[in-house]
């Protein structure tokens, strides 16, 4: 029913301008929601980027730690190598190539001694063929065959310490 009394200021304002106020409130709320959502999207993007930067920094840090560990290992390796006198500047290489040489047994023994490994001297044979020149005598035979020659083929490389 209509009332004879005038409503109060706020009630009158609400009564007369209710649709406009509701619309304005709704618009303001929608704009606020849009801005808040946009802000949230931007914040999430920033968080994602920050997490990516952290992941990259962590990966690089892990690589750095690995390199430090490798450097420590290398230092220890060099210490052990020095203890074993394995300094590269003090070692040299020599190739040995003897092809089907008929030589006497003393010379053959002398030649084969070069192929013997010992401290500061390492020989690696790529190919060898040691046989008796006489089919009647073996490689390690009796005194009767000592005059016989051996046929020696020897190809390889020697690495030896120079000092």
């Amino acid at each position, binding site marked *: 029913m*209509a009332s004879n009394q005038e409503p109060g200021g706020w009630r009158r304002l609400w009564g007369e301008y209710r649709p406009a106020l509701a619309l304005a409130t709704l618009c303001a709320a929608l704009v606020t929601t849009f*801005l*808040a959502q946009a802000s949230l999207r931007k914040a999430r993007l*920033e968080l994602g980027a920050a997490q990516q930067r952290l992941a990259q920094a962590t990966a690089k840090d892990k690589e750095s730690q690995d390199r*430090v560990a490798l450097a420590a290992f290398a230092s220890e390796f060099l210490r052990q190598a020095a203890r074993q006198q394995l300094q590269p*500047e003090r*070692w040299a290489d020599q190739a040995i190539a003897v092809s089907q040489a008929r030589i006497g047994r003393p010379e053959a023994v002398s030649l084969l001694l070069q192929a013997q490994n010992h401290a500061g001297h*390492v020989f690696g044979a790529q190919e060898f063929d040691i046989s008796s020149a006489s089919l009647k005598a073996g*490689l390690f035979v009796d005194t009767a065959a000592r005059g016989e020659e051996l046929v020696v083929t*020897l190809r390889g490389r020697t690495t030896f310490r120079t000092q």
Partner: protein
Amino acid sequence: MKPASLHAFQHCWLTRSGAELISPGRLERRPARFAVDQDVIVVVDMPEQAVDVSQLAGDPAHAAALIDRALRGQGLMEGACVVIPHATARRPADYDVLFTAYPADWWAGVQSWAAEAEHLVAIVPVMALLWATLAKGQALVYRDAARFTFLANIDGRPAMVATQAFSEEPSDLASTAALLCESVQAQLLTDAGQGSGARIVATLSWFTRLAPVGGDEMADAGMSLATAQRLGLELRPVAHAQVLQGSDAFWTCLPALCERFSARLMTNPPVDRYSLRARQLLPRASAAGVAVALLAMLGAGVAGGLAVTEYAHARSVDAQADAVRQATAARASQEQLPENFKATVALVDRIGALLERPDTTRLAQALRLAGSGGVQVMRLYTVPVKVEGRRHGAEPAARVLVDAIVRSDAPLAVQDALSRFVNTLRRAGYLASAVESPGRSAQAVGAAVFSYELKPLEAGEGA
């Protein structure tokens, strides 16, 4: 529920002779087409109108034209009329329609007056409002001065009986009310064709249009009670409002009737109905809009809070990343490899590779020892092995072979000598496997040449 916007409406009875404007506690009599200064619901009720229930066949859309022709044919209306159907109830072969007919010229004038008013003038026939108060199984009596109208909703079908008293004397009114009951019982409720009608009408309401407070009030109370008792119905009270015109007091059912008002009952042009519906919906739409706005703001607040948290988290993560980068930078000086590390590794690799090759000195010592049991070693040599997929620059693989014969002066039989030869080699760290003799020593004089492939025994394979 009455829409909130209708509270601002005035209520008005409209007849040909004038209008009775009802506002809370007040009755004001005005000319028929008074100046409207506020939205008003105008309930049209005039003696010149024709109200009835007709039974028609065909399409209900043509009901108004059929009724118009019938009214004119019966001489109930003079000149052209406007027929307004209020309720239609279909049956298999025909239908009943409750209608009100108004003189066309007068009705056009009312519509014109309503259209020209600066405020909304909602024109509603009284029968439309009365029918709107009835649910199925309910009935009412509407008294306008000496005129009584009984209206019932019988399972959705309208039924109506009207009587007219000689005067408004209480005795005349009472006898007319009694007559109405007889008519109702005779024509409707006990009608053979509608035999179940009496049982499906249960309640009765009593509406008095406008009556002075005093004698009539008591008369209406008595009549309503007596009518309900005669018809065997339960009396359903209707709240009548008391209004003052100067010092005279009246009571009227108009406010109670207007509680049933809705836009669909209006006879105004469609634009007025839509306008009223929009105004009725506006408060709800406004409230809904405010509710949505509040929810949206709540959502915005939550999203804003989340955004602040995410920004803070992002800053924290960035700080962690900075700390990690600083730690990495501080460690940079420790990452350098020693100067001659690579050369030393290359030397060790080279020596390792050489040591993996067959050791001729060790082989010769083992063979010399193994041959002491009567086996004469004729040849010690390598045979290259073809390896599929060998990488470029890698040393070719080689098999180590040995050719031997059993000396004729051997102290053991051939098989025993060879067995001892193989076992001795095994103890010296070599596995000797017999192979076909491919070498030139196969031509050794007078003795069979045995060839073996020598392989270093792996750890744990020793004799």
